[in-house]
Protein backbone atom coordinates (compact mmCIF):
# COMPACT_ATOMS: atom_id res chain seq x y z
CA UNK A 1 0.00 0.00 0.00
CA UNK A 2 1.38 3.40 -0.96
CA UNK A 3 1.11 6.18 1.60
CA UNK A 4 1.89 9.87 1.37
CA UNK A 5 3.96 11.57 4.06
CA UNK A 6 3.47 15.24 4.93
CA UNK A 7 7.01 15.89 3.66
CA UNK A 8 6.18 14.40 0.25
CA UNK A 9 3.03 16.56 0.16
CA UNK A 10 5.14 19.66 0.87
CA UNK A 11 3.66 20.10 4.34
CA UNK A 12 4.92 20.04 7.91
CA UNK A 13 2.90 19.29 11.01
CA UNK A 14 3.10 21.07 14.36
CA UNK A 15 3.80 18.44 17.05
CA UNK A 16 2.17 20.67 19.66
CA UNK A 17 -1.23 21.41 18.06
CA UNK A 18 -1.29 19.23 14.89
CA UNK A 19 -1.67 22.27 12.63
CA UNK A 20 -0.43 21.65 9.07
CA UNK A 21 1.50 24.29 7.19
CA UNK A 22 3.60 24.48 4.05
CA UNK A 23 7.29 23.47 4.19
CA UNK A 24 8.16 26.94 2.91
CA UNK A 25 6.33 28.70 5.78
CA UNK A 26 8.43 30.01 8.66
CA UNK A 27 9.39 27.81 11.61
CA UNK A 28 6.75 29.14 14.02
CA UNK A 29 3.37 27.45 14.07
CA UNK A 30 0.69 29.82 12.73
CA UNK A 31 -1.79 28.52 15.32
CA UNK A 32 0.05 27.91 18.59
CA UNK A 33 3.48 29.50 18.02
CA UNK A 34 5.51 26.36 18.75
CA UNK A 35 8.52 25.58 16.58
CA UNK A 36 7.61 23.46 13.56
CA UNK A 37 10.19 21.26 11.84
CA UNK A 38 9.51 18.75 9.13
CA UNK A 39 12.04 16.47 10.85
CA UNK A 40 13.64 17.31 14.18
CA UNK A 41 17.18 18.71 13.84
CA UNK A 42 19.99 16.30 14.81
CA UNK A 43 17.42 13.86 16.17
CA UNK A 44 19.70 10.82 15.87
CA UNK A 45 22.76 12.46 17.44
CA UNK A 46 20.72 13.81 20.39
CA UNK A 47 19.17 10.40 20.95
CA UNK A 48 22.63 8.77 21.09
CA UNK A 49 23.89 11.37 23.59
CA UNK A 50 20.88 11.07 25.92
CA UNK A 51 20.97 7.27 25.68
CA UNK A 52 24.70 7.26 26.53
CA UNK A 53 24.11 9.33 29.71
CA UNK A 54 21.20 7.03 30.64
CA UNK A 55 23.33 3.88 30.28
CA UNK A 56 26.31 5.37 32.16
CA UNK A 57 24.08 6.46 35.08
CA UNK A 58 22.49 2.99 35.21
CA UNK A 59 25.66 1.42 36.68
CA UNK A 60 25.97 3.56 39.85
CA UNK A 61 22.18 3.31 40.13
CA UNK A 62 22.46 -0.45 40.63
CA UNK A 63 25.74 -0.54 42.54
CA UNK A 64 25.22 2.27 45.09
CA UNK A 65 22.64 1.99 47.90
CA UNK A 66 19.30 3.69 47.24
CA UNK A 67 18.07 3.62 50.83
CA UNK A 68 19.78 3.91 54.26
CA UNK A 69 17.73 2.52 57.15
CA UNK A 70 18.85 3.50 60.66
CA UNK A 71 16.98 1.72 63.43
CA UNK A 72 17.60 0.62 67.01
CA UNK A 73 18.38 -2.89 65.75
CA UNK A 74 21.09 -1.63 63.41
CA UNK A 75 21.75 0.17 60.14
CA UNK A 76 21.15 -1.33 56.71
CA UNK A 77 21.87 -0.19 53.15
CA UNK A 78 19.49 -1.23 50.40
CA UNK A 79 20.37 -1.36 46.72
CA UNK A 80 17.70 -1.88 44.07
CA UNK A 81 18.32 -5.63 43.94
CA UNK A 82 18.47 -6.09 47.72
CA UNK A 83 15.16 -4.20 47.99
CA UNK A 84 13.60 -6.72 45.59
CA UNK A 85 15.12 -9.63 47.55
CA UNK A 86 13.84 -8.29 50.87
CA UNK A 87 10.35 -7.97 49.37
CA UNK A 88 10.52 -11.63 48.30
CA UNK A 89 11.71 -12.74 51.74
CA UNK A 90 8.84 -10.72 53.27
CA UNK A 91 6.44 -12.80 51.17
CA UNK A 92 5.25 -10.08 48.76
CA UNK A 93 6.32 -11.84 45.57
CA UNK A 94 3.88 -9.93 43.32
CA UNK A 95 5.16 -6.54 44.51
CA UNK A 96 8.76 -7.77 44.25
CA UNK A 97 8.04 -8.79 40.67
CA UNK A 98 6.62 -5.31 39.84
CA UNK A 99 9.67 -3.56 41.31
CA UNK A 100 12.09 -5.96 39.62
CA UNK A 101 10.34 -5.48 36.29
CA UNK A 102 10.14 -1.67 36.58
CA UNK A 103 13.67 -1.09 37.91
CA UNK A 104 15.78 -3.76 36.23
CA UNK A 105 14.02 -5.19 33.18
CA UNK A 106 12.36 -2.07 31.70
CA UNK A 107 15.51 0.15 31.67
CA UNK A 108 17.57 -2.56 29.95
CA UNK A 109 14.80 -3.29 27.42
CA UNK A 110 14.58 0.44 26.71
CA UNK A 111 18.34 0.81 26.18
CA UNK A 112 18.28 -2.05 23.67
CA UNK A 113 15.08 -0.88 21.94
CA UNK A 114 16.24 2.74 21.47
CA UNK A 115 19.71 1.68 20.32
CA UNK A 116 18.11 -0.79 17.91
CA UNK A 117 15.77 1.86 16.51
CA UNK A 118 18.57 4.38 15.96
CA UNK A 119 20.82 1.74 14.39
CA UNK A 120 17.98 0.73 12.07
CA UNK A 121 17.81 4.38 10.95
CA UNK A 122 21.56 4.74 10.49
CA UNK A 123 22.09 1.46 8.68
CA UNK A 124 19.70 -0.18 6.27
CA UNK A 125 17.68 -2.80 8.13
CA UNK A 126 15.04 -5.24 7.00
CA UNK A 127 12.73 -4.28 9.87
CA UNK A 128 9.38 -3.09 8.50
CA UNK A 129 8.12 0.44 9.21
CA UNK A 130 5.27 -0.99 11.24
CA UNK A 131 7.48 -3.01 13.57
CA UNK A 132 9.75 0.03 14.02
CA UNK A 133 6.68 2.11 14.86
CA UNK A 134 5.49 -0.52 17.37
CA UNK A 135 8.92 -0.65 19.01
CA UNK A 136 8.96 3.15 19.32
CA UNK A 137 5.45 3.23 20.83
CA UNK A 138 6.54 0.55 23.32
CA UNK A 139 9.60 2.53 24.46
CA UNK A 140 7.45 5.63 25.04
CA UNK A 141 4.84 3.57 26.92
CA UNK A 142 7.10 1.63 29.29
CA UNK A 143 9.67 4.36 29.98
CA UNK A 144 7.76 6.16 32.71
CA UNK A 145 7.18 2.97 34.73
CA UNK A 146 10.82 2.83 35.81
CA UNK A 147 10.11 5.83 38.03
CA UNK A 148 8.31 3.50 40.53
CA UNK A 149 11.46 2.98 42.60
CA UNK A 150 12.11 6.75 42.77
CA UNK A 151 8.58 7.30 44.10
CA UNK A 152 8.93 4.40 46.56
CA UNK A 153 12.07 5.96 48.05
CA UNK A 154 10.38 9.39 48.16
CA UNK A 155 7.33 8.02 50.02
CA UNK A 156 9.40 5.87 52.41
CA UNK A 157 11.73 8.76 53.28
CA UNK A 158 8.75 11.05 53.91
CA UNK A 159 6.77 8.53 56.01
CA UNK A 160 9.46 6.75 58.06
CA UNK A 161 10.93 9.49 60.23
CA UNK A 162 10.58 8.10 63.76
CA UNK A 163 13.81 9.50 65.21
CA UNK A 164 15.78 6.93 67.23
CA UNK A 165 13.36 4.07 66.50
CA UNK A 166 13.72 4.03 62.72
CA UNK A 167 14.78 6.64 60.15
CA UNK A 168 15.14 6.24 56.41
CA UNK A 169 17.32 8.47 54.20
CA UNK A 170 17.83 8.32 50.43
CA UNK A 171 21.18 7.13 49.04
CA UNK A 172 23.17 8.29 46.02
CA UNK A 173 21.98 5.29 44.00
CA UNK A 174 18.46 6.65 43.67
CA UNK A 175 19.78 9.97 42.26
CA UNK A 176 21.75 8.07 39.64
CA UNK A 177 18.69 5.93 38.92
CA UNK A 178 16.46 9.00 38.45
CA UNK A 179 19.09 10.51 36.12
CA UNK A 180 19.22 7.26 34.15
CA UNK A 181 15.43 7.05 33.79
CA UNK A 182 15.00 10.73 32.89
CA UNK A 183 17.77 10.70 30.29
CA UNK A 184 16.44 7.51 28.72
CA UNK A 185 13.02 9.19 28.49
CA UNK A 186 14.72 12.20 26.85
CA UNK A 187 16.42 9.83 24.42
CA UNK A 188 13.08 8.23 23.52
CA UNK A 189 11.40 11.61 23.03
CA UNK A 190 14.24 13.14 20.99
CA UNK A 191 14.06 10.30 18.49
CA UNK A 192 11.78 11.76 15.83
CA UNK A 193 9.20 9.02 15.05
CA UNK A 194 8.64 10.53 11.59
CA UNK A 195 12.12 9.34 10.61
CA UNK A 196 10.90 5.76 11.12
CA UNK A 197 8.43 6.17 8.26
CA UNK A 198 10.81 7.74 5.75
CA UNK A 199 11.45 5.17 3.02
CA UNK A 200 15.06 6.05 2.24
CA UNK A 201 16.09 6.70 5.80
CA UNK A 202 19.84 6.99 5.66
CA UNK A 203 21.48 9.73 7.71
CA UNK A 204 22.52 11.70 4.63
CA UNK A 205 18.93 11.82 3.53
CA UNK A 206 17.80 12.92 6.98
CA UNK A 207 20.36 15.72 7.03
CA UNK A 208 19.15 16.92 3.64
CA UNK A 209 15.57 16.96 4.97
CA UNK A 210 16.74 19.18 7.83
CA UNK A 211 18.63 21.39 5.41
CA UNK A 212 15.67 21.63 3.03
CA UNK A 213 13.34 22.67 5.84
CA UNK A 214 15.73 25.33 7.08
CA UNK A 215 16.91 26.91 3.83
CA UNK A 216 13.39 27.63 2.57
Amino acid at each position, binding site marked *: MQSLTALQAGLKRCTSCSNMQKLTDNDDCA*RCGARVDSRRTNSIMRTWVFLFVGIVAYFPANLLPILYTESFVGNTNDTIISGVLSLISAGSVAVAFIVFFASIVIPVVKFIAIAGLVLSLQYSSNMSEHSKHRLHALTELIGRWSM*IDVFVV*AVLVALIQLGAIITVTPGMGINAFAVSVIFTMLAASSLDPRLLWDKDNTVDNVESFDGAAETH
Partner: protein
Amino acid sequence: MADIFVVGVVVSLVKISSLANLEVGVAFWALLGLIGVSLFLDYVLCKDTIWDRLTCRV
Protein backbone atom coordinates in the same frame (compact mmCIF):
# COMPACT_ATOMS: atom_id res chain seq x y z
CA MET B 1 3.14 10.08 35.91
CA ALA B 2 0.44 10.11 38.64
CA ASP B 3 -0.56 6.51 37.87
CA ILE B 4 3.03 5.43 38.46
CA PHE B 5 3.13 7.39 41.71
CA VAL B 6 0.13 5.39 42.95
CA VAL B 7 1.92 2.11 42.22
CA GLY B 8 4.94 3.54 44.07
CA VAL B 9 2.71 4.35 47.07
CA VAL B 10 1.33 0.79 47.07
CA VAL B 11 4.85 -0.69 46.95
CA SER B 12 5.95 1.59 49.85
CA LEU B 13 2.89 0.60 51.89
CA VAL B 14 3.75 -3.09 51.36
CA LYS B 15 7.32 -2.37 52.49
CA ILE B 16 6.14 -0.48 55.58
CA SER B 17 3.61 -3.18 56.45
CA SER B 18 6.53 -5.52 57.15
CA LEU B 19 7.69 -3.06 59.84
CA ALA B 20 4.40 -2.04 61.41
CA ASN B 21 0.66 -2.63 61.44
CA LEU B 22 -0.90 -0.58 58.71
CA GLU B 23 -4.42 0.52 57.92
CA VAL B 24 -5.21 2.37 54.73
CA GLY B 25 -7.07 5.65 55.29
CA VAL B 26 -9.85 7.30 53.28
CA ALA B 27 -7.37 9.59 51.52
CA PHE B 28 -5.68 6.60 49.87
CA TRP B 29 -8.95 5.58 48.19
CA ALA B 30 -9.62 9.23 47.31
CA LEU B 31 -6.16 9.35 45.67
CA LEU B 32 -6.95 6.18 43.71
CA GLY B 33 -10.23 7.77 42.56
CA LEU B 34 -8.46 10.99 41.55
CA ILE B 35 -5.87 9.11 39.51
CA GLY B 36 -8.61 7.01 37.89
CA VAL B 37 -10.59 10.09 36.90
CA SER B 38 -7.53 11.90 35.52
CA LEU B 39 -6.55 8.80 33.49
CA PHE B 40 -10.09 8.71 32.09
CA LEU B 41 -9.81 12.44 31.29
CA ASP B 42 -6.58 11.83 29.33
CA TYR B 43 -8.36 9.05 27.47
CA VAL B 44 -11.45 11.03 26.43
CA LEU B 45 -9.86 14.46 25.86
CA CYS B 46 -9.09 15.03 22.18
CA LYS B 47 -6.44 17.74 21.86
CA ASP B 48 -7.15 18.27 18.16
CA THR B 49 -10.84 18.99 18.86
CA ILE B 50 -9.90 21.61 21.45
CA TRP B 51 -7.49 23.30 19.00
CA ASP B 52 -10.09 23.22 16.23
CA ARG B 53 -12.71 24.80 18.50
CA LEU B 54 -10.25 27.49 19.58
CA THR B 55 -9.41 28.33 15.97
CA CYS B 56 -13.04 28.44 14.80
CA ARG B 57 -13.95 30.97 17.47
CA VAL B 58 -11.51 33.58 16.09
